[in-house]
């Protein structure tokens, strides 16, 4: 097992999926998993099955919706798309995330005070 790969923070998976759907338009589960792999340059450690649990959760909250369509090579697939409520949620989350990330970043940069 490679120890260099960080685990996905609780809650951030939802945010990343929303962002992926927002950026790329409707995707099936496999597509979402590939997108996450791609943007993290293969660094994220993730059971791809958990993507489906996250998709279910997001669907229940009304942030994404799904419909059956046809994928590459004529296979039946379920496509997920972000909704208006999902976009609003994403905007809020993104802003919150940037703030936190900024704060954490600044704290990490503090040099030890000289006496």
């Amino acid at each position, binding site marked *: 097992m490679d120890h260099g790969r960080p685990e996905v923070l609780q809650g951030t998976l939802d945010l990343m999926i929303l962002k992926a759907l927002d950026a790329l338009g409707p995707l*099936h*589960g*496999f597509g979402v*998993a590939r997108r996450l792999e791609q943007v993290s340059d293969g660094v994220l450690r993730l*059971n*791809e*099955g*958990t993507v*489906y*649990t996250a998709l*279910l*959760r997001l*669907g*229940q*909250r*009304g*942030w994404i919706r799904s419909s059956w369509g046809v*994928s590459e090579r004529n*296979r*039946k*697939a*379920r496509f997920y798309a972000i909704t208006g*409520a999902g976009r609003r949620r994403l905007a809020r989350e993104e802003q919150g995330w940037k703030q936190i990330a900024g704060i954490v970043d600044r704290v990490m940069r503090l040099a030890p005070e000289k006496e």
Partner: protein
Amino acid sequence: MAAPAWLRTLLSKLGACVHRRRDDAALDDEIALHLTLMEERLRAQGLSASEARREARRAFGGVQQLRESHRSGRGFAWLTGAAQDSAYALRMLRRQPAFAAVAILTLALGIGANTAVFSVVEAVLLRPLPYPSPDRVERVGWIWNDRGPATGAMAPFKFEYLRTQTAAFESVATWVVATRDVGARGAGGSATVLRVSHDFFDVVGSRPSPGRAFSGDEQTPGGPDVAVITDACWTARFGRDSGVVGSTLILDDRAYTIVGVMPPAFEFPEIASPVEAILPLALRANPGDLGANYQVIGRVRAGLDRAAVQADLDGIVDRLRRERPEQFSGVGERAVLMTFQEINLTDVARPLWLLLAGVGVVLLIACTNVANLLLARGTTRLHELAIRRALGASRTRIVRQGITEGIVLSALGGAAGVALGGAGVRAFIHLAPAGIPRMDQVRLDGLVLAYTTFVVLVTGVLFGLASTELGGRRGVSASVPVAARGTVNTPAGRRLRQWLIGVEAGLAMLLLVAAALLSSAFYQLTRTDLGFDPRGLVAISFRRPPAVFRTVDRGHATERALVAQLAALPGVAGAATTTVAPLGERGYNMPMTVEGRPDLTEGAIEWRAVSREYADLMGLRLLAGRWLADDDVAARRPVTVINASFAARYWPEANPIGLRILPGVFRGERRQGTNPTSLEIIGVVDDVRDLGPTKAVRRTAFIPQTGTEGVPVFLVRALGVSTDALRAAVRQADAALPDPVVSTFESRLASRLAKDRLASGLTGLFAAVALALTAIGIYGVVSWVVRHATREIGLRMALGATRARVLRQVLWRGLLPVSVGLVAGGGASLAASRYLVGLVVGAARVSPGVMLAAAGVLTLTAIVAACVPARRAMAIDPAVALRME
């Protein structure tokens, strides 16, 4: 507006419950596609087919875990969990049929009794009255003086004044109830009819359809005879004939033209018996008629509260008092708003609430018992619970399982209880005294079932907590080894069970004291010395005043002839007449003032116009002077005989013989239509409770019946004389007399006491059930103690303890909590007893005797219940007991 996220989650979860299979299949499709696409991608990167397959699965993670987490995320996991728990609970109950039977039966008793009594309370006390906006329908009554109670009726002149002057009522009407014979010569039996004034249909918010209400000229004196019939009458007497409007209804041999039919929904709960016909009441607002005989019902204008309506009434009465002071006789005489309950349910509401409290206590005892059973089982299941905790079941999970089991148990008990409650309702309706409004509408309806469900849920949750409390609270490390040893006798469990026994004993004590109090009062009541002997006494009366009594001479002649005819019948020991039949519905009272002593004046003295034979027939004891003589009647001498209470009130020391009283005069005012001559007191007789054992003796004056004092009731002391012979005597005395109503005094006495019998009987029944349940509970605890202390007892006996000492010790564990409960329950019953006073006439505060009797019965029951298992402890062989383990 978009639904909040939590609501959408809930909705989608609800949807998922329905589409479980479809959603499972959809997820499987998605997983399959994902794996296929992944494999293809890996193959394209150069992996072999088998490598690609393995790598795709590895990257995906556990398929089965995903399925499960997806499923539980989709629906309500706890729902499936609850189904599993319920199935498990049912399996456990099936494995212990004796436990299940006792618990379910106990609960069924408690829940059934509650269901039955609550259905009565709901129908009689809680259900809204059947009028549109019933909160605006009010009744107006009359208070005669500051101290007096309100009567639910008014005099006609005052009603008419109120009707024309009121600003608070939108419409106000008066009504009188009467019984009429239906059909030619009464062939159709008798019917309850309502005579109503103008605005009646507006007040009750229901109008005849088909047909119409009464027109103006039909409501004036001497107007045409018209009637509106009710739906029940239309069905029973006309077979719902569509041409009924315009046809004829014969009432008391008069033909009434039917002008309308009330809709089926029309009800008039102000009287207990169902109404068949409504007739117009042409009110003669005669200022001389001061009798409050007209019930008043009105519809208040929207938005007015009761205080505003009462203020309107007060203003009207003040104006009337200024304009017509002669209309008022008492200080503080006024009109009051009265509720339906105040008029119709005064002696019904409190007994019903108390019965509900009583069955509530029975249910508490039943629950305590079942909790005890569950606890006993809980200790034997300690092992199971400990293992489950050790295997990783959370405490919440175990408590949830316990609660599910509790609810399953109480639901089964509740289902049996509802069936039992249905039977109880029928029994209650059968036993209930006549005259309770809406008693015929008592049934198990939605509200009752909701109440029962609530009771079931609460008891179920409590049971669940009780049964898992022991296993759940103890840590795994503590309970596994203890449980594994198989001899569990935790002090905590024993204390809890002893507590429950104490509570049970206290509750049973409460009910026992109540039952002892009420039944001793009832026993006293049935043994009340009425002052006369009711055995064989029969009253012969007429439903309506027969025409022969309209003229004084003819009436007097008929009366004498009938008395002679009746007295001559074989088996009749005597006959007499009175104007007020003993043990009847009501007396007859009139004011009086002592002549020459305006300060000795009273508003309501009971008056009886009786024949000479009355004293002999009733067995009145003469205390002073003489009784009425034949020539008092013949010469129409103005004389009166008073009873002992009357004499004692005004002449406690002196002899009243020869003094005179003025009938109908109160505080210098003469009541209209009364005899202006004064009456000489010629004798004093001992008191007689002729209004029944529940009524106090009233001050009474007897005057000779001369034919001017109203229609007589004939009294006969007839042992073994048939009703037909009595009826025949009536026909022979005067052919013009109608068929009489014949009633025995035993039956009148029984109906006077029906309410008291019901209250004391039901309380006694509840107390018996409580006692039985408590006995079961005590038996259970003591046998549990014995079973689990076998080894300890064996050890003690091996060390030299005597059997008697062991018996005492074991008994003590059962009886200590009982005695604590006795004291607490006794204290509670002292506090509660003031609510019982008056429930059965004569029931006073708790006496030491009653308390001791209840405590004695309970202690005896407890000792017997504890002795049975305790004897088993004595029989323990020390050698056997020590080898156990």
